[in-house]
């Protein structure tokens, strides 16, 4: 006899997870910068931090939104000389990944001029959100 219980459970749980996934991915959450330690230094990323903001993106090979995120952040930062975008291969830098507790790709950290993490987006962020966050950092 056909059994419909497993499929009912799968579709219910998957839909609940899918709705949460769709809402949470790409959201740029700000973090309180007070009492923070620098998340990354110039020697961690192999180049100077941006004089105002550094956008540190963690990417991997099996990740479709990483390409879109890279294109968006490159596009935004080209015109801004005080904002730097760094794209890091997460798989080759697992020590950084662990230290910063990066769990999936793309994950983008927003660092202020002192290298303190003031925001983070898991998934591909939206242009307007990135612009608003950049404008809010002095």
């Amino acid at each position, binding site marked *: 006899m056909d059994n419909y219980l497993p499929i009912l459970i799968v579709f219910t749980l998957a839909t609940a997870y899918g709705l949460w996934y769709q809402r949470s991915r790409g959201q740029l959450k700000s973090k309180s910068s007070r009492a923070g330690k620098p998340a990354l230094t110039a020697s961690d990323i192999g180049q100077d931090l941006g004089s105002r903001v550094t956008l540190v993106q963690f990417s991997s090979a099996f990740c479709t939104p990483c390409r879109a995120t890279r294109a968006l952040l490159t596009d935004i930062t080209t015109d801004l000389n005080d904002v730097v975008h760094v794209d890091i291969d*997460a798989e080759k830098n697992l020590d950084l990944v662990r230290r910063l507790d990066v769990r999936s790709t793309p994950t983008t950290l927003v660092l202020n001029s002192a290298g303190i993490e003031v925001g983070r987006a898991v998934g591909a962020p939206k242009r307007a959100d990135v612009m608003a966050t950049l404008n809010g950092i002095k």
Partner: protein
Amino acid sequence: MSITNVLKFNSTEDVKLLDARGPRFGALLTTIVLAATLVTGSLPLLIWQLGVFALGAFAGPQATPYAWIYRKFVKPRLSGDIPTEDSRPPQFAQVVGFLFALTATLAQLLDSIAVFTVAVSFALAAAFLNAVFNFCLGCEMYLRIARIRSAISMRKTPEDSYNLPNL
């Protein structure tokens, strides 16, 4: 090699670009086949899907019969810009699907209904999430697997912790 080259993600390497809607259409057909498999427990249906996953995993997502149906019947009816994606993320998903389908097939042959049900359920959930919510399995799973694998190998041989085997 400078530290920057080691550190930075190499975006200039040759990647094969696909029409991103193809794998998503494939996920829709996979959802239907796996849903029918889960309800009926049909071994032929499961073996069909196992074969599709095998083609996607080893020959690439564009080599499956679902990709052929997409190119032949669906794509000609679509208009607008073609969203592209790297072929590696959907291929990774096909590998994961293949492993679950293989587990389910062996379980069915060995009369282990519980393992069959769980394995098909996971593959179905992933296909459904991909089709409906544009879920990126590689984004969510790959880094977690890499972290676990390096934690295990670091415990064994600390100095070799970065020489991870290829998946």
